[in-house]
């Protein structure tokens, strides 16, 4: 073991020498500091025997380890070798392929801690170099690699101790419901507890019931709105369990959850405002104005009222005037008030539309419990943007939707907004959900919301009937030029690597357009003469010919691509050679 470098690191993180106090608790059993140092040393030797990869010019490893204790060990070992840890959000195979780095942690290398036996070269940590790179879980949904150096990480852990350390005792155990590989769990749960020499509980809180199984001790809860809002259902704290404080971050905490959470814990529940890029910026209790974190200075950009952040955590990354956030704010002597995202303005036509405003207007309707608006590019008509509404209905709204047709309900909601919003701001696409889709941080990402609008139908344009002269004109004949969207929902998994349009979907489309153009209800009839001859693939532009039979009781359909028939059949009463498909799952 190379004592000097590890001691440097220990001092750096203010880890006291083995004072008999545990670093963590696993299954209620303490893991002492001596064991922690032994594990660190083993991890260092393992890593020293691995050839590091390179990210943005720095040598390092990808670290993914669901176990919080092992994660902490690998992380400190990586740093003590002067290496960088890239922290992916998951270890899915796609992520592994995208990160061309040696992978440390997880089930595959859990045993490696004791089996590798290479000599460890010593190197003192250079505190200015990057310590971790993480992926943001920003509201744009696009992962972005963010770099944090050791100085920033240490400064953040110190900031928390200064802001909230007064609430804690040295024995206070940290326990969390959030992942530790993101820029909330990492500094708040792992680094704060390590640097402040507070032990942490290895086991994550998954469900409110887990709170009833805690050992008697003082606790600090590092959590997020998705977990905190369920505290109303949690069993009462076991005897001897005492909460000293809690934090919430990742997404806005509803006032009901803030109040019920604080009441359950009988402790202050601090909501944290910040981002992966900026670190923690401000805190508040309940709905009181936000207060800047120690060392953070706030101002507003003139004109736009966007929040400017001056923070030691930015470490030179801000301009002279500060880090320009995407949030519009108001500042006065009472503190900070956040007024919404600057980027929640979209231009439709020549008008600037505030998505927040549209959401507010919709939320006033008795049918609506809560709503998110997503701007959607409108594929075929130039560059116009249309708005999609993802709505959680109130019981009243649900009742009305169930009582009639979705299209009429959509139009009725649009109707209610008219006069309150510009016609351009009226949502065009409606999705009714029981809850918003969100990731494990409890963040409703734009990506997840957009997925709800993945197209199910092709774009169709009607063409003149090519053989207009024969058989008495065009009546009852429709020729459509289709464009099959590449992101069509039906291609998912059908088939991996070779997406083709499922036959049942072709039938469904033929039925859909027969209804649109002829009012023909294909659900009540069978299909005969059905044949699939050539495949249709993403981005293809097939044509669909529909002919209503003279007696009005049947519709012939032909899909063709470049003059070659893809499939054909007849919707007709009587003999059935294939069942009409249900909507594919």
């Amino acid at each position: 073991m190379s004592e000097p470098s590890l001691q440097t690191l220990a001092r750096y993180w203010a880890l006291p020498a083995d004072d008999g106090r545990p670093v963590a608790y696993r299954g209620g059993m303490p893991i002492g500091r001596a064991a922690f140092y032994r594990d660190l040393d083993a991890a260092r030797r393992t890593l020293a025997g691995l050839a590091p990869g390179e990210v943005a010019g720095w040598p390092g490893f990808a670290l993914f380890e669901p176990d919080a204790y092992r994660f902490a060990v690998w992380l400190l070992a990586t740093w003590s070798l002067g290496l960088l840890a890239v922290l992916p959000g998951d270890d899915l195979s796609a992520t592994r392929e995208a990160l061309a780095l040696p992978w440390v942690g997880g089930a595959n290398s859990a045993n490696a801690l004791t089996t590798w036996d290479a000599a460890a070269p010593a190197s003192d940590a250079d505190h200015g170099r990057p310590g971790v790179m993480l992926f943001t879980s920003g509201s744009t949904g696009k992962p972005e690699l963010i770099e944090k150096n050791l100085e920033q990480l240490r400064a953040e852990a110190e900031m928390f101790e200064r802001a909230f350390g007064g609430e804690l005792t040295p024995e206070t155990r940290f326990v969390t419901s959030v992942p530790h590989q993101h820029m909330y769990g990492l500094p708040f749960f792992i680094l704060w507890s390590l640097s402040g020499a507070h032990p942490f509980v290895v086991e994550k809180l998954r469900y409110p019931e887990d709170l009833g199984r805690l050992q008697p001790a003082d606790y600090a809860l590092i959590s997020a709105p998705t977990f905190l809002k369920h505290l109303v259902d949690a069993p009462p704290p076991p005897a001897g369990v005492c909460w000293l404080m809690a934090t919430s971050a990742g997404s806005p905490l509803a006032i009901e959850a803030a109040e019920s959470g604080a009441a359950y814990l009988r402790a202050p529940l601090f909501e944290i405002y910040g981002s992966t890029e900026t670190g923690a910026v401000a805190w508040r209790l309940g709905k009181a104005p936000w207060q800047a974190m120690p060392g953070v200075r706030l101002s507003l950009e003139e004109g736009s009222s966007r929040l400017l952040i001056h923070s030691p955590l930015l470490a030179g990354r801000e301009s002279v005037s500060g880090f320009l956030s995407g949030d519009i704010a108001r500042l006065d002597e009472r503190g900070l008030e956040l007024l919404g995202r600057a980027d929640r303005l979209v231009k439709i036509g020549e008008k600037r539309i505030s998505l927040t405003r549209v959401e507010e207007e919709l939320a006033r309707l008795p049918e609506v419990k809560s709503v998110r608006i997503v701007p959607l590019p409108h594929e075929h008509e130039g560059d116009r943007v249309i708005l999609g509404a993802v709505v959680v209905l109130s019981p009243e709204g649900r009742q009305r939707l169930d009582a009639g047709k979705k299209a009429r309900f959509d139009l009725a909601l649009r109707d209610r907004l008219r006069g309150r919003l510009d016609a351009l701001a009226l949502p065009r696409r409606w999705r009714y959900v029981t809850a918003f889709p969100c990731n494990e941080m409890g963040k409703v990402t734009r990506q997840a919301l957009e997925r709800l609008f993945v197209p199910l139908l092709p774009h169709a344009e009607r063409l003149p009937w090519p053989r207009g002269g024969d058989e008495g004109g065009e009546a009852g004949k429709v020729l459509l030029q289709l464009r099959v969207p590449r992101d069509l929902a039906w291609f998912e998994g059908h088939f991996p690597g070779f997406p083709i349009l499922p036959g049942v979907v072709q039938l469904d489309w033929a039925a859909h357009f027969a209804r649109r153009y002829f009012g023909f209800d294909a659900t009540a009839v069978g299909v005969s003469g059905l044949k699939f001859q050539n495949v249709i693939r993403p981005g293809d532009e097939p044509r669909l010919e529909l002919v209503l039979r003279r007696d009005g009781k049947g519709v012939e359909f032909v899909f063709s691509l470049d003059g070659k028939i893809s499939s054909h059949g007849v919707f007709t009463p009587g003999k059935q050679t294939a069942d009409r498909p249900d909507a594919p799952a």
Partner: protein
Amino acid sequence: MATFDELIHEIKAFIIETLDLEDVFPEDIDADAPLFGDGLGLDSIDSLELGVGLQKRYGLKISAESEETRQIFSSIRALAGYVAEHRTI
């Protein structure tokens, strides 16, 4: 030649197709309700798209923002009447 009711149905399908109205079928649209404002609630960009579409489909030239245009777009029925009378395709 198609009957007037068939033409009304066709115009409804044309509007649904041109404006990519989701989950809406011709039977959901009231032939006498206004296209803009109350009723379908189409917006100014839609009127442009409809104008272009009408020219392509029926060979109609509709001048923007005239009083006549307002009249033509006042309902599906009014639009169908105009199409029946003035179509060149």
